[in-house]
């Protein structure tokens, strides 16, 4: 199985461990992810808040370069922007023409975009993953946190149920861990307000962390660089600000899967996590 991989900017910066663990897991599963040559930023929130055509042109520029091959994505924000561009361009001839004029190529909006969770849970499948597990994560009580942009809006991403997605839960369960049912799977973490208005992020992550603790989780599993950063790097600040105590490691799903596949913590970038997961990992 092979997909053209669009890492996105975060995977080269704050989420380098997401990148590392993705590549390690892909290799272990025989999944080929050659990088899309010369990829550029999707424009993220800054583009769609500022300039609607630029917000479509940047993803379209990347997707046109894929020449119709299926593009695999890890970052939920990139996924959302690539999917939104496909949605707008494929259904509106005028938009397609405008974007073509901007990027200098007629892109039809039909290059398939798959999140790595879709590839794992749908294309490979939990049974096949379970068969590859070398070290079942028995006793690990995880909550899967999807954040906003994988499942919303559903007519654009067509990812999974918008209110109760299950793809990550299935992957985590295939690893031998318990994926707990909880109500905050798709609540918002505050995203890039981490920089512009951190109070928003602190109050929203507090609710997510509190609920994870309340349902008895001993870790949170994420699929988005901003979600991970907000829940992990700001956890101590949130504990101090609100007088709470969480101590919840916040993994990427690829790190959890990698552990189950028997890969070394180092090859999964676990040392990049701010809330130290090693005591939990040692217990498994």
């Amino acid at each position, binding site marked *: 199985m092979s997909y053209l991989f669009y890492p996105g900017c975060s995977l080269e910066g704050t989420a380098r461990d997401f990148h590392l663990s993705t590549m390690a897991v892909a290799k272990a599963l025989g999944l080929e992810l050659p990088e899309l040559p010369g990829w550029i930023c999707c424009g993220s929130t800054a583009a769609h808040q500022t300039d609607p055509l630029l917000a479509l042109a940047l993803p379209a520029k990347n997707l046109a370069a894929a020449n119709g091959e299926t593009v695999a994505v890890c970052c939920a924000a990139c996924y959302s922007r690539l999917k939104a561009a496909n949605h707008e361009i494929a259904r509106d001839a005028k938009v397609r023409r405008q974007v073509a004029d901007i990027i200098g190529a007629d892109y039809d909006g039909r290059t398939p975009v798959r999140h790595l969770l879709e590839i794992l849970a749908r294309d490979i499948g939990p049974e096949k993953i379970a068969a590859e597990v070398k070290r079942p994560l028995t006793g690990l009580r995880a909550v899967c946190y999807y954040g906003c942009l994988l499942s919303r809006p559903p007519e654009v991403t067509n990812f999974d149920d918008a209110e109760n997605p299950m793809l990550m839960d299935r992957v985590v369960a295939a690893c031998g861990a318990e994926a707990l049912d909880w109500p905050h799977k798709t609540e918002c973490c505050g995203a890039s*307000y981490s920089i512009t208005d951190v109070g928003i992020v602190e109050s929203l992550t507090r609710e997510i962390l509190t609920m994870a603790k309340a349902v008895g989780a001993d870790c949170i599993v994420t699929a988005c660089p901003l979600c991970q950063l907000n829940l992990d790097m700001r956890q101590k600040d949130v504990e101090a600000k609100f007088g709470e105590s969480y101590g919840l490691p916040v993994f990427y799903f690829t790190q959890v899967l990698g552990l189950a596949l028997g890969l070394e913590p180092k090859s999964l970038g676990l040392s990049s996590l701010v809330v130290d997961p090693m005591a939990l990992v040692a217990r498994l």
Partner: protein
Amino acid sequence: MSKTVQLADAAADFVAEVERASAANLAACLQCAKCTSGCPVAARGDLKPHVVVRLVQLGQRDAVLGCRTIWECTSCQTCATRCPQGVSVAAMNDALRQMSRAAGKVVAETRVPLFNDIFLRTIRRLGRMYEVGLMTSFKLRTRDFFSDADKVPMMLKKGKLSILPPRVAGKGERKQLFERARRAGGAK
């Protein structure tokens, strides 16, 4: 008893303008407030999401372009996903942000437009995000040197930051792309 309200032409123009820029289907809003119920930031905003829609319908240009709420929306898409009428407050807010900037009505407290500008300038120049450069510019412009001062050494230690900027070919082509998008009427 229903009462008919006749909007002045300027007000009707405003509704049409927001709708053209957003395709948010604003006329369909029934004021059920489901968007507000699910909104993660409604409690802190100066206007609730469904109130912003109503004010747009009534052509209250200054009230909506000058509100804080549009700069606190996280674009989480919960409103658009749950609306029984297919209205997208998230799409409306994108259009209102652009119109607010074009009209010089941006509320003083927000740092979002500055952040967005630095972000877009960075990717126009480099092709990809450069977090160290972005944060440095943002801190210089906001003169806010102390918040998160503890985070930088920690992020460096954890390997979360690249000191050197990314290198991606095609700078001239990128500049053209941004310029064409701007001229096509995206950026106001």
